[in-house]
């Protein structure tokens, strides 16, 4: 037993875990409507006009038509890489994408348009995967724009979530 644990500390520590997915700057600011996407890791909920919106963490926003309020119908998906949270005033949506504040024209929710990017507004102290307990590769902003997590085998990972993060 003692020998085994000594060996372990000398060799590389390999473990299943998560690594950040990085995208290029162009892809990160490619704000557009897409057809229906799966609800996977949802966040904030919001009512605006006849629409019910659900944030998809780090990815975008699902849009439902709720002309019949108790029977919402999926009408569009807003692909907004990095999307953490959002709010709306008038015909404009503001999004925190983990780095910047975006202003998006949603006067036609089926054809949204990016107005402005206010760069480098948010300091997220520790980037960590949600709903996850275990090791992960630490996020390195120098590697690009991070938008999510992939499964991988990690070698000597330095980051770890100690408890479920819901």
């Amino acid at each position, binding site marked *: 037993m003692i020998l085994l644990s000594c060996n372990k500390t000398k060799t590389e520590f390999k473990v299943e875990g998560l690594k950040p997915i990085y995208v290029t700057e162009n892809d990160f600011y490619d704000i557009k409507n897409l057809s229906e996407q*799966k*609800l*996977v890791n*949802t966040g*904030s*909920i*919001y*009512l*605006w*006009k006849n629409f*019910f919106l*659900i944030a998809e963490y780090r990815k975008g926003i699902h849009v*439902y038509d709720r002309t019949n*309020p*108790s*029977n*919402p119908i999926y009408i569009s998906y807003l692909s907004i890489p990095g999307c*953490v*949270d*959002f*709010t*709306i*005033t*008038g*015909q*404009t949506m*503001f999004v*925190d994408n983990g780095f910047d*504040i975006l*202003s998006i*024209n949603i006067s036609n929710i089926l054809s949204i348009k990016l*107005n*402005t990017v*206010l760069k480098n*507004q*948010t*300091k*997220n*102290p520790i980037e960590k995967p949600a*709903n996850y307990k275990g090791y992960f590769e630490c996020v390195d902003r120098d590697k690009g724009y991070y938008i999510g997590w992939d499964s991988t085998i990690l070698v000597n990972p330095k980051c770890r979530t100690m*408890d*479920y*993060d*819901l």
Partner: protein
Amino acid sequence: MIFKKNGMKKTQSILLALCAVFIFSGCSKEGILDSGSTDKNKSGSITKFAIVNQYMYSLNSSNIDVYDIAHPELPVKINSVKVAPIIETIFSFGNHLYVGAPDAIYIVQTTNPISPVVVGSEVHIQMGCDPVIVKDNIAYSTIRTGRQCGRLEKVNELQVIDVRDVYNPKTLKRINMNYPSGLGYDGSLLFVCDGPGGIAVFDIKTPQNPERIQTIKNVDAVDVITDEGLLIISTPTEFHFYDYTDLNNIVLKNKIVKS
């Protein structure tokens, strides 16, 4: 300037009643109508944004960032004010922002909207997660511990806080809950998402003394929006729509299920 459409009349009548009762406390009708935004916009209670007139307040790590959104296509950051080491949720009511943090609720005055000032706080002894909402002179906040939300002591409760004196808020009551998180009100009804415990419905006709009158079961409720008799609930895996026009017979009308 237009208050959220839902409950506007109710809010006005409650306001008038409360102004009559608390006239000495400086209860300001126009202050309350100032909050909220145009259109029928409603967020859940777990949010990092608040819009008040032409200003947007955005939680950013330990600060509230202030943006001038008079021209929303071109927001301008005009200030950033430190509140606490970690801040999590924000709710605007009257001339104040109520900020939920793991260690306390902070009350931030926006009499000068471009220069928010922290005026008061109500410190929890325990570390916990805690959205906060405010109705008139009473704040309702949930504290939950366990999972990622603090580990010092297991506390899961709804706190009722007197915020009439924003410089010196006082916890009036602590009500035991299961694993509470988001909360919202409609008139004299307070809905508290209680995780696996479902949704607790309180009568808040006497705002400082919520009376639990109903529980919606079989739902792992996380956050809530009330909308004219319709309750929208988020859970870790689903979204539920309940008709609560008859409190004795709250009906699940629909679900959105994650695939």
